[in-house]
């Protein structure tokens, strides 16, 4: 259903974030993408919906080459790919309902969106999703009034109201406590199963990934280092992906470099 062919991204600074990545994902498969910070996980996910423009290679979604699409074609393709973000990325000054409904922007015209006059079916679906993630009572609260876990649930509802075929999930639990992290991962995986969605989940927490997914891909320096079932992650494999232990000390720096590169490229 999704096929990445020789996907390569070289940033303006010359850093090669992705080196000819080849991945094929069947419909309905939930996949975890692990690897150290700076391995290209975020870049890979953003190249699929072209928030980051890939340098070469192709992304084939249901037989359509995303990398070749015009801007209007890309907008149509983005509707079928819901995205969930690390820091929730809700528009903080909008209400919960507006945030959820913004997932329908690809389907409604400018004036409808501007006047917040969404079709009744969209509004009903928004309420249904908010109820499913347990936030129906919060519909008219402003997004910045919610806790981290609640915000991420709104983020999930926003992605699902797009009626996507594929979920791109970027570090969904990175800023959450361990219990909320599990709840969020469980919710994402349950919803994927309910709706038959494929998902790519970037995740730092290897143990958490093993708990919920069917397949794990390990990225290291922009190349696929491991691709297999979660129980195939032996200590040797993890060492191959993450490298030496004292690597941890530089994680923060790499994260910031990564962000700068992306903004330079955007």
């Amino acid at each position, binding site marked *: 259903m999704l096929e990445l062919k020789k996907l390569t991204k070289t940033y303006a600074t010359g850093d090669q974030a992705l080196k000819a990545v080849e991945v094929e994902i069947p419909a309905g498969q939930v996949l975890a993408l692990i690897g150290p910070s700076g391995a290209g996980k975020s870049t890979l996910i953003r190249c699929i*919906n072209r*928030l980051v423009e890939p340098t070469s290679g192709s992304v084939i979604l249901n037989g359509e080459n995303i990398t070749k699409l015009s801007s209007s074609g*890309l*907008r*149509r*393709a*983005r*509707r079928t*790919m819901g*995205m969930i*973000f*690390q*820091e929730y*990325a*809700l*528009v*903080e*000054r*909008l209400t919960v309902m*507006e945030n959820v409904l*913004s*997932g*329908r*922007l*690809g389907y409604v015209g*400018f004036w409808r*969106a*501007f006047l917040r006059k969404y079709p009744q079916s969209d509004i009903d679906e928004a309420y249904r999703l908010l109820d499913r993630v347990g936030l129906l009572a919060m519909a008219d609260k402003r997004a910045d009034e919610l806790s981290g876990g609640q915000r991420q649930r709104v*983020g999930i509802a*926003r992605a699902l109201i*797009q009626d996507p075929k594929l979920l*791109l999930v970027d570090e969904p639990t990175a800023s959450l406590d361990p219990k909320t992290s599990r709840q969020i991962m469980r919710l994402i995986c349950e919803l994927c199963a309910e709706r038959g969605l494929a998902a790519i989940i970037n995740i730092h927490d290897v143990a958490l990934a093993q708990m919920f997914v069917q397949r794990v891909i390990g990225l290291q320096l922009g190349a696929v280092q491991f691709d297999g079932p979660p129980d195939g992650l032996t200590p040797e494999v993890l060492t191959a992906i993450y490298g030496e232990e004292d690597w941890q000390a530089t994680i923060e720096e790499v994260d910031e470099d990564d962000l700068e590169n992306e*903004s330079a490229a*955007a």
Partner: protein
Amino acid sequence: MSTATLSDVGLDDRLGRAWKKPHFITNPVLRYALLGVTIIYLYLAVNSIEVNWARVSEGLVRGWEFVKAFGNPDFTSRWTDIREGMIESIIITIASTVVGIAISIPIGLGAARNIAPLPVYIICRAIVAISRALNEIIVAILMVAIFGFGPLAGFITLSFATIGFLSKLLAEEIEDMSRVQAEAIQATGSSWLQWINYGVQPQVMPRLIGLSIYRLDINFRESAVLGLVGAGGIGATLNTAFDRYEFDTAAAILIIIIVIVMALEYLSGVIRARVQ
């Protein structure tokens, strides 16, 4: 004892001893030399001023007249002129602020590097630079030369000045916005306009409102000055009053200006507190 040797002193020697902040200039010779030079310069400088005491006393008398006029402002004898000037100033202020904001928003969007393509960015930044380079008075003189005396010149001048101010600050606010919030809206497949409406506007709106009210305040004060070069408004009335030595009328006009500016200041405080 100098600080250099103190740093070699151990804890036992330091205990019980007074502490003084090290001097800004550590070298004592340089320190006292600089002090001496400053004193000599000040002495020579004060001596070089020639004071015409006759003119000072004359000025003091006139100044005192003015101060007395403030105690007894005359709103009535030129009331028609004051009222007309005020209404003209208020019309100039509101019209130029509204038009200025309306033009500033698209230019501000174009002048934000993170959302505008390079050619648009360069053009919009150039407009901002031109508007900011020219002082209001200079533009007003130019506009009076082109459109003649009157409020039209003032209106165009202040609209033009508003564009430079508001577009620049709006563009900077957009450049500082949270990228990931805007990215999330982009990822839903929104069009460009929808993206601006959902991803960008909510993030910059409180600042835009605050800046607009601040600009309204500035435009009102400027409209009082522009009258001096013939661009209409209360400034023209004020200028006439000074020319006629009618300090009591001038005082009345100044008091009205101060009251209006204070009211605007209060209003902007209230509104900005509410839009967060």
